[in-house]
């Protein structure tokens, strides 16, 4: 067995052991309205809100959403890779499949990508994301999310000549994709904890390394 896989399984087993006494207290919570379900299955019931934070390598993120009628959920989120590539976005989610134990949601996001450092760039972005989550029993919820993001990178070129400085703007597209699989655990009726693994594809052909994160979900009704 690969060492990483072994370590992951050991971690998951450990997490389940640690959570065991706590999750008993969560029994009786309404699964379809749990914030972890709303965050990873996507969307919130009308009048409910949910938030989440994740930290890991390389991504960190915060996400807040509020449920409206007819399956619509607006949200805001900010994600960052190593605090170097930052992507604030607003979005709208629509629940496609909305059953008590299974949820599938489509999301559209509009934002701005700002990367600092040696490879600095910025530009507007649009992303499409599909989320899916399902309960296994009352405590564990595997989930997945797949995102395709298209960014228009804007370059400003200043050419200094004897007659003055000429400035021009050029733009080029860039495509990023991100797949996430993970599992969320119920900590309480209003709080969930999750571990996820990310499979990115960034900057078109750039080779990418997988990521991992821990996240916390919470929510309720105002």
């Amino acid at each position, binding site marked *: 067995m*690969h*060492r*990483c896989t072994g*370590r992951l399984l050991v971690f998951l087993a450990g997490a389940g052991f640690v959570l065991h006494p706590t999750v008993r207290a969560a029994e009786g919570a309404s699964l379809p309205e749990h914030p972890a379900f709303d965050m990873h299955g996507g969307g919130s019931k009308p009048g409910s809100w949910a938030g989440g934070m994740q930290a890991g*390598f*390389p991504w960190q993120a915060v996400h807040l959403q509020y449920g409206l009628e007819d399956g619509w959920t607006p949200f805001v989120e900010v994600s960052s*890779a*190593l605090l*170097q*590539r930052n992507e604030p976005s607003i979005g709208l989610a629509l629940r496609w499949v909305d059953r008590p134990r299974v949820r599938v949601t489509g999301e559209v996001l509009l934002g701005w990508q700002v*990367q600092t*450092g*040696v*490879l600095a760039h910025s530009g507007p972005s649009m992303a499409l994301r599909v989320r899916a989550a399902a309960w296994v029993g009352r405590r564990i919820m595997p989930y997945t999310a797949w995102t395709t993001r298209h960014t228009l990178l804007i370059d400003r070129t200043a050419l200094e000549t004897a007659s003055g400085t000429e400035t021009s703007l050029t733009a080029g597209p860039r495509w990023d994709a991100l797949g996430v699989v993970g599992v969320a655990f119920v900590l309480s009726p209003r709080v969930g904890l999750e571990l996820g693994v990310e499979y*990115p594809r*960034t*900057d078109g052909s*750039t*080779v*990418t*390394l997988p*990521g991992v994160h821990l996240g916390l979900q919470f929510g309720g009704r105002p």
Partner: protein
Amino acid sequence: MRHSWPVIGLLSLLMNACSSEPAELGIYVQGQHLAVVDMHLHPGEWSQIPPDTQAFLASRFPFPLNLIPEIAASVTLSGEGILGEMDKAGIHAGVLFAVYAPQTVGIASNELVGEQVAVDPERLYGLASLRVDRWNTDADLELQRLEEAITTYGMIGVKLAHAHMHFRMDDARYFGIYELAGRLGAPVYLHTGTSPFPGTSREPPYTDPAYLEDAIAQYPETVFILGHLGYDFENHALGTLEHCLRLARDYPNVYLEPSALGSVGSDPESVNLPKVMKAIRDAGLVDRTLYGSDGPQSPGFVNTYLQRTVTAMTASGYTVNEVRAVLADNFTRIFHLPAIQP
């Protein structure tokens, strides 16, 4: 630097977390255990690299390391980092290059190389270099420093890159470098072919080793190692390979080193490195060829390049003894070092 040492530690951990257990040194070819020397490795300091080249290098790092290239570089370009990459590849010994090309690829001073070699002097060697950008006034001083690096600090050879350092291969004002190297018994490694780095000279007098012929003929006691075999890194083409082969055939003091040209980025279809290795064998120049990778570049590159080179050799019909010669024995013979036992 904005990032703290804990981040560097975390990155080091992550870069090594998924590696296999420390590998046995050496590789197996047709059941025989062979020693390996990588004669082309680059230590360095990120701050000594010009911004355009920093961006070029960062763009070759995998995501997300390309977001924090200075940290990734501090891990991979140190003596410890290079030894880690050598361990993963099973490489017994490596040669670290000093570089003085402040306008293009930056500076890795003789002192820096000496410090990194000292991390494990049983496995690491150094090639010294010198500045040539103020040659009209500083030539004597630079030659003196070069001699000190070799005689006093244990460097075993000289590294030059005309395309990076912006001086012609046939410019006789610089022939004193070859004279000194020959007198000290220090082989000279020369970058040949175009360079992918920003700001380098691309014209033939800086890249085509045919322009070295006068120096090669004039200093028969000096060993000339033609790095990259004249590869055209701009167009991913064989470039002036034929000139390199002819020089090696015509002059016994010319050697060949096929680093970097067969990397995933420079030979995306994996066709050029096999062609080069076959051409070397067909020309009867296996005993003039030394293995090098041009690493570490990015995590895993040193290992990948070794595998690609061995694959290219076996596909070209190299015998085990020929592979053994290229991977280690030619190097120890040319540099007058003890043979390495796998």
